[in-house]
Each structure stands twice: as structure tokens, then as C-alpha cells.
């Protein structure tokens, strides 16, 4: 067992974990962060995407011990403290960027990461930016629209981004 300490969605947790524990299982099973889901066994689907020290990663392809000392943000940590949705969450809702919703936490976390690097992405850049995330329902069209809408709302308002980061 290894002692692992990480800050998840603003709260510090210290636990004894087996080195083979994947970050996503630690988040879900030890910390109760079940908003982050597991959709595959091959690191392809992206549904487990979280931010590790501010960068989007597939939490099924990171060991919990590797995140020792890190800051982790999950889908549960991006809404404002009062509960107001993050602009990307709001845009997915408004633009019907989801159907079953299974891919949505990962799509949103990947999209936030993309918009941080590229606040006004073209449609092509959005499709490339979320190429690590698979959706079996929507055909992606409304996901791209949602990211475009969020980009529009967030650009120029770095405050929103900063507050959520």
C-alpha cells in the first residue's frame, strides 16, 4: 500500500492505496466521485477524462499513486460554488450536446481543456480537440455546436475561466 494525498475538487484527501489502483477507480470508489465514468478497457473512449494539475488526462490511464500531491478536477468540481453550471456544461445542456449522457463528463472536461489552449477554435479544431472522446449517440454535431457556443460565451470573459480553473 502507498500513502497518497491529492486535492480533488478543492478538498484534500489522504488515503492508503494499492499501487495498481487506477486514478478513476480511486476517484469513484474511495472518494465517491462517481461523476467520472469508465467506458472502455483500452484508453480509447475518454469518458474518464479529468484535469490533473490543470491538464486533461484519461484517469483510467493514470495510477492513483502517480497523482500523489496533485490537484485533480472532475466534472463534479467545475460548477460555481452556488451551483451555477460552468459555461461548457450550460452549452451542452442548451445545444442538446448529449443523449444518453455517458460520454458527457469526459467531453466537457476535454472541451474545457481545449478552450483554455484555444479560446476560439474552428469547427475542425474542435473535432480534433475532442478526438480522444467517443460518443455513441449524438453523431458529434451538437457537441461541436455546444463547444462553439461555450467558446463564444467564454471568450473575452477570462474571469469565468479563471474562477472555474
Amino acid at each position, binding site marked *: 500500500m*502507498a500513502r497518497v494525498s491529492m486535492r480533488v475538487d478543492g478538498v484534500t484527501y489522504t488515503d492508503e492505496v494499492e499501487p495498481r489502483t487506477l486514478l478513476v477507480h480511486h476517484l469513484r470508489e474511495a472518494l465517491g466521485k462517481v461523476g467520472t465514468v469508465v467506458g472502455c478497457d*483500452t484508453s480509447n473512449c475518454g469518458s474518464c477524462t479529468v484535469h490533473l494539475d490543470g491538464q486533461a488526462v484519461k484517469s483510467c*490511464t493514470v495510477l492513483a499513486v502517480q497523482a500523489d500531491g496533485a490537484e485533480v478536477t472532475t466534472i463534479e468540481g467545475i460548477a460555481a460554488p452556488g451551483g451555477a453550471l460552468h459555461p461548457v456544461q450550460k452549452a451542452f445542456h442548451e445545444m442538446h450536446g448529449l443523449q444518453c449522457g455517458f460520454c458527457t463528463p469526459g467531453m466537457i472536461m*476535454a472541451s474545457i481543456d481545449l478552450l483554455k489552449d484555444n479560446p476560439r477554435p474552428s469547427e475542425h479544431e474542435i473535432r480534433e480537440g*475532442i478526438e480522444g472522446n*467517443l460518443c455513441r449517440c449524438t453523431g458529434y454535431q451538437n457537441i461541436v455546436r455546444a463547444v462553439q457556443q461555450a467558446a463564444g460565451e467564454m471568450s473575452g470573459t477570462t474571469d469565468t475561466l479563471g474562477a472555474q480553473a
Partner: protein
Amino acid sequence: MIPAAFEYVRPTTVDEAVQAVAEGGEDVKVMAGGQSLIPVMRLRLAAPSTVVDLGRVAEMRGVRDEGDVLVIGAMTTHAEVIADPLVAQHARLIAEATETVADRQTRRRGTFGGALAHADPAGDLPAVALALDAEMVVAGPGGRRTVPARDFFVDYLTTTLDEGEVLVEIRVPKLAGQWGVRYEKFNRVAQAWSIVAVAAAVRRENGSIAEARIGLTNMGPTPLRASATEAALAGAGASPDAIAAAARSAAEGTSPSSDLNAQADYREHLAQVLTRRAVTAAAGL
């Protein structure tokens, strides 16, 4: 699935890492970004008894300028390589190929050294290292040695790295003179892995091609140089016809596999087409 249980060691220097590998027993495995290793451990295709995590070895990360050579730490992530100003200036072919690797999340964790040490025939970076005549600096219990890329890749998923050795950094000679570069890749939309790809660097002089270096991805168990095409291009006019003629020999001496994505003869065809495109673009036509 969850990996089988293992001992976990997290060194902070290269010396500690080499020692940890030496002490790790027979089934010790080095972990870089884990983007190839964790998936195979999850599928239980690999079950090391000890994992030596290089993630905190700071001296293995980053890019530095050593005059004629750019030195890239093995633990430099794909995302860091893409954003690095020195790479952009002196080894743009690496940045261009790295942009096509996997997806944004995987590029945040996966490393340049890990991709080379993994030596997947469909991996994009081995052929680029080969085309640029890069050298691998390897540390082991006996000290350090330097291996040219052409000797580093031995077979499918196999390099010249010995059991106890760690790839520390990669020395990339800067391209001196008027070089153009291009990475041309053919892959399925939903999978970034190359079916075939071609890395080209072309030096032009007075309207003709003085020198061309061409690396082939997935045209055999190891990355290969398109030597016949390189020879045909040396001193050739920088014209579409001359390039097209030279590209016809791009698959000479290769031994591509046949799999669900493509038959061997189709890969040979792709190698010719992609070589023509890559050289044409690199020559600025």
C-alpha cells in the same frame, strides 16, 4: 480491468532509477507516461512484479540546446514537445509528427522517450528519429552509452535497450541549411495509429534537391529509411516529375505486414503515394 498487483518505486534521479531497475528483479518494468504500458497492464498482457515510475525524474524532462544538437529528455511529454520553441525552430518534423500522435489527453502523459522505447511499428516517432539521425543516450549499471537510431530499433516492440537500461535523452542533430520537412500520415478517422506514414526532410540548393531523408512508419517490424528514393533524389531537380519518379521506389526493401487495416501490397502503394506527397511538400512545391 485492473492491473495485477506490483511493487511501485518512484526514483527522482537517473542513478536512482537505474538502481531501482537493478533491484527490481526479473519482471521489472520502467514506466514513463504509462500511455502504452497501463493499457497492456489493464488487459493483463503485461504483469510486471515491479514498476519503476520515471515521472518524478526531473533531469529527464525538457529540451536543451547544445550547439549543433538539440537534446530532448526522454520524459518530455508529447504536449511539451509540440509547444517547445527549440523543437519548433530546429526539429519541426518531430513537432509535426507528434501533433498526429493519439489525442490531446494521451499527449499530456505520453512521452517522447516512451514512444521510442516502446518501438511500436505503427508509432509515429521512431521513423522521425530515424530520418533525423537521432542518437539515444542510454544509462545502465555500467554507465552511459549512445546508440544511433539506426541501431536502436531491433524488431517488433524491441529495441537494443538491455534489461537494466533506461533511455535518458535523445540527441537530435539540427538541420543546417535550407531544409523543409513534412510528416504525411494515413490512418483511420477513429484511430490515430498510422496504417502507413512517411517522415521527410529535404534540403534544397540552387533549385535542386541536395539531400533527402525519408523515414517510413509501419512498413516493417522496425522503422525504415526509404534508401532507394533518397538516392534517387540526391542531386535531382526539384520538380514534381523527378519527385514522383523517385517516390516509386519508396517501398523497396520494406516488409510491411498484412492486417485488418491493410494488406501488404496496399501498404506498399501507400508508401509510394505518401512519400511523393511528403517530399513534394518538404521541397516547398
